[in-house]
């Protein structure tokens, strides 16, 4: 009855197009529809799509980046809702199809709707497999809080918010395949301590053999992820939420969250219920048609073709094209004969490529292996009858393009097998790209061929970013970007335009930093709006460029800079760090980490008086008062009566120190005194990115000086080592030794000179850990220590000018600089709440 009702309601009189219904709005379903539209299918079909996720169509591959925080969920959508509208596609999102009536040609969904079709496409994909373990479910039948699958946007955002709760520190990932390792790496970026428990004998056993697995394990462990292989999880421990996992024959592991990445299962329920042929997945023929059903097709991970089920996107792109050829009648001879899957991925930051056999199978198979575990490099190729039948590459994927093609097409191989693994002075990578056939797939995620890239370049688009935008190549997992660049370079025949914008100091002013500084100086541009007026195209302001320009001008002009407050980021307008709930955090200066009972008492009083929800010690040895509403900032500063600690700026922030010689048994230098002197001298100076410093009293390095932007270590004989370019954040890098000097005065001089050089030469937001390796420590030593360029005096003088123009920003408390500088920008109750202890 409902069927008839909605049937008549839906048909538009006069519309004679066939009704095409798609079940599943994932990567395969949407791609199939795109292919159909590309073949003019909109004229023939009125398209309706069902998807049980409450979203448009997104790039599932990018969830790994969402988990690690590199990408926002907003940026991973492939087709916006506007796309559906523009193409006249009816999208039922958040609606699940339950049954197909093949005879009445109706699709029944869980919103009570019955939708008629003339042609049906099933693209239901797969879901995470949750192997049975004790204690996984609550008595109500739901997953125990803290257990996650890794498949959808909701899974991913759920994991992120759970991982960000401060009392969650440890996670166990069940499964050491591709997804498990991605999950482990992603969780790490939220500060979670991760252990991977894998039942196989080695990691990624579906893609590589034990030797490669061992090298991969080393690389993964070097990232700080613990790995346990040959281990089976038998139960999840915990009452109301996860507290740990139980292993067979091994001690329990305590943890706060569990991610299950133990494989996937095709979603075949709809097909089974509706009487379609299902084995491991929904069976289809070479036309992607369900056998004996003229009008039902299936595509993607829910499909079994010639006995194979694929779990990667590249095959489903090929399937979607064949399907579209038939649905639209564009090419009735088109057939899908299966895909040879070559996986080419970046897993947890490690390049991994694998294809075909993992190891030799016959006595006559040749096996070429190269292994260098300390660098995380492993390469193995299996050759049969002078053809490549399998390859595994880890940690170095430069030869991937050629190998994939040789594998796909059975190309004849060079006599000297080793040249399959390395470029031996012969034709280099360029030639490697030239050898590729036009239809070789360069970007697997988005199915872009070498030819498509070459055509785009020939069409006049000769920048890497332009080609990426036009073809979507390199916009999936990103592992092929290097190859895309090589193809663009090859196709442009050397005439590649370096994407000019990539070199601009800020996006809105088309000049590199040195040229920009020259223009600013020559034209005497002292304010951000003056720079836009003089140097930006059409004099147009650009919001994204303001903060970088403000920083640069302040550095260049010091006291003569004209300060326009709207050019600053909100942190720099109110001298505090904006938090996720719109409140601010206040960190008073505490030079060298030294404080006094009097200061502590005052801080405590302020915290009481203003109901500060959280008082916390920072990693830089200071005290952070979190959750201060904007309008309270001036009063809080007044009551603290301490200078700003600059915890909010792209500027010099803090100097961490150890106890040093006065109290420590080991100290050989007065680290505390030097730290305080450095902080007093350089407080508040602008820089391209934040600067965190440290001074340690001996090589035991209690202040962690080796991983600071500038780190100083006292060594025997009263001398001091200066390290630059260290980091212990998202990137970890030990600083390079700049110089060993005899006295604290020289430390201050050279540190200041280094910082000034960095301020003048670094790109906007480029931390010293990128800057130092980019310009090279030898070069820095030559310029800063040996004055090879004769600019040392000028650098010192420029730094001195900045030091002299210092004023404590918190002095603005008594005299707001702009009207309503500290007025609230939101009623705080509508903001997302942050947890308060």
């Amino acid at each position: 009855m409902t069927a008839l009702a909605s049937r008549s309601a839906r048909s538009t009189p006069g519309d004679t197009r066939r009704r095409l219904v798609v079940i599943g709005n994932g990567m395969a379903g949407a791609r199939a529809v795109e292919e159909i539209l590309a073949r003019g299918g909109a004229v023939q079909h009125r398209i309706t799509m069902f998807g049980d996720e409450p979203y448009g169509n997104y790039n599932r591959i990018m969830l790994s980046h969402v988990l690690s925080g590199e990408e926002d969920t907003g940026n991973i959508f492939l087709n916006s809702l506007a796309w559906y509208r523009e193409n006249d596609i009816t999208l039922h999102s958040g609606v699940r199809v339950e049954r197909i009536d093949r005879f009445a040609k109706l699709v029944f969904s869980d919103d009570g709707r019955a939708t008629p079709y003339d042609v049906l496409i099933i693209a239901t994909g797969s879901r995470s497999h949750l192997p049975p373990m004790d204690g996984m479910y609550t008595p109500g039948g739901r997953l125990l809080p803290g257990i996650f699958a890794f498949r959808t946007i909701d899974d991913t955002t759920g994991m992120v918010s759970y991982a960000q709760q401060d009392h969650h520190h440890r996670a166990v990932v069940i499964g050491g395949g591709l997804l498990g390792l991605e999950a482990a790496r992603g969780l790490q970026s939220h500060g979670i301590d991760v252990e991977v428990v894998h039942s196989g004998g080695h990691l990624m056993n579906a893609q590589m053999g034990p030797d490669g697995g061992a090298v991969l394990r080393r690389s993964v462990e070097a990232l700080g992820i613990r790995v346990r292989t040959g281990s089976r999880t038998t139960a999840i421990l915990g009452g109301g939420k996860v507290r740990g996992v139980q292993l067979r024959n091994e001690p329990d592991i305590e943890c706060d969250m569990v991610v299950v990445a133990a494989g996937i299962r095709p979603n075949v329920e709809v097909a089974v219920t509706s009487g379609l042929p299902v084995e491991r997945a929904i069976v289809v023929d070479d036309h992607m048609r369900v056998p004996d059903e003229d009008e039902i097709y299936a595509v993607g991970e829910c499909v079994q073709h010639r006995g194979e089920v694929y779990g990667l996107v590249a095959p489903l792109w090929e399937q979607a094209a064949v399907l579209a050829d038939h649905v639209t009648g564009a090419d009735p001879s088109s057939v899908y004969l299966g895909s040879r899957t070559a996986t080419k991925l970046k897993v947890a930051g490690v390049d991994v490529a694998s294809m075909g056999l993992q190891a030799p199978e016959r006595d006559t198979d040749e096996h070429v292996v190269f292994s260098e575990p300390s660098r995380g490099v492993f390469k193995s190729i299996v050759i049969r009858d002078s053809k490549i039948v399998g390859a595994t590459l880890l940690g170095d994927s430069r030869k991937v393009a050629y190998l994939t093609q040789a594998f796909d097409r059975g190309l004849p191989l060079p006599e000297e097998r080793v040249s399959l693994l390395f470029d031996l002075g012969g034709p280099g990578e360029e030639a490697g790209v030239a050898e590729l056939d036009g239809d070789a797939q360069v970007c697997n995620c988005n199915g872009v061929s070498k030819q498509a890239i070459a055509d785009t370049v020939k069409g006049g688009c000769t920048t890497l970013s332009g080609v990426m935008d036009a073809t979507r190549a390199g916009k999936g997992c990103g592992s092929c970007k290097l190859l895309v660049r090589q193809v663009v370079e090859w196709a442009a025949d050397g005439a590649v335009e370096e994407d000019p914008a990539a070199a601009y100091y800020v996006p809105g002013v088309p000049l590199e930093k040195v040229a920009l500084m020259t223009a600013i100086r020559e034209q005497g541009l002292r304010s951000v709006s003056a720079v836009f007026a003089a140097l930006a195209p059409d004099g147009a302001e650009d919001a994204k460029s303001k903060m970088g320009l403000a920083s640069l001008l302040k550095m260049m002009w010091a006291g003569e800079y004209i300060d326009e407050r709207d050019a600053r980021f909100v942190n720099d307008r109110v001298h505090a760090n904006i938090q996720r709930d719109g409140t601010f955090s206040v960190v008073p200066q505490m030079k060298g980490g030294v404080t006094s009972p009097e200061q502590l008492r005052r801080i405590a009083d302020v915290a009481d008086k203003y109901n500060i929800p959280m008082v916390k010690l920072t990693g830089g040895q200071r005290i952070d008062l979190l959750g201060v509403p904007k309008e309270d900032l001036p009063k809080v500063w007044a009551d603290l009566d301490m200078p700003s600690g600059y915890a909010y700026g792209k500027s010099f922030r803090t100097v961490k120190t150890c106890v040093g010689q006065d109290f420590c048994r080991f100290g050989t230098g007065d680290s505390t005194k030097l730290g305080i002197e450095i902080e007093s001298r350089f407080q508040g100076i602008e820089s391209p990115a934040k600067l965190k410093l440290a001074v340690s009293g001996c090589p035991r390095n209690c202040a962690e000086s080796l991983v600071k932007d500038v780190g100083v270590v006292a060594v025997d004989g009263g001398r001091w080592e200066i390290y630059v370019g260290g980091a212990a954040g998202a990137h970890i890098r030990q600083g390079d030794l700049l110089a060993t000097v005899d006295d604290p005065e020289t430390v201050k001089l050279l540190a200041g000179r280094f910082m000034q050089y960095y301020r003048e030469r670094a790109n906007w937001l480029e931390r010293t850990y990128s800057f130092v390796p980019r310009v090279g420590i030898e070069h820095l030593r030559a310029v800063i220590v040996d004055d090879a360029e004769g600019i040392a005096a000028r650098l010192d003088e420029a730094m001195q000018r900045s030091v002299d123009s210092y004023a404590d920003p918190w002095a603005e408390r008594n005299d707001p600089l702009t009207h309503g500088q500290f007025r609230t920008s939101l009623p705080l109750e509508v903001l997302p709440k942050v947890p308060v202890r």
Partner: protein
Amino acid sequence: MSAGLTGDGLHVLGPVDQIPVGEGRAYGVAGEQIAVFRLRDGSLRAVSAVCPHQGGPIADGTIDRAVVMCPLHQHAFELETGCSTSGAGSLRSYHVFADGEQNIVLQLL
């Protein structure tokens, strides 16, 4: 911060110079939170004050002639239309202007 109501859904929010040039300030108008910006060319723009992404304070954002960028995750929104240029949901936009006495007048319909 509260507003006087005149006819036609027009609300007078007080003098323009409460808003420094190039910045925004938030106002509560008839139960709605609205961010008003004063562009460098002197004109005004008004959009809803709460970022659709994760509730960020739009009035604390950085602007140019065309867009405002939310301070929390840098999603950008057109000041004229409220539409996001970076894939977030959209803000509402409101008609706003300065009257003869240089008062901010917001139309809420």
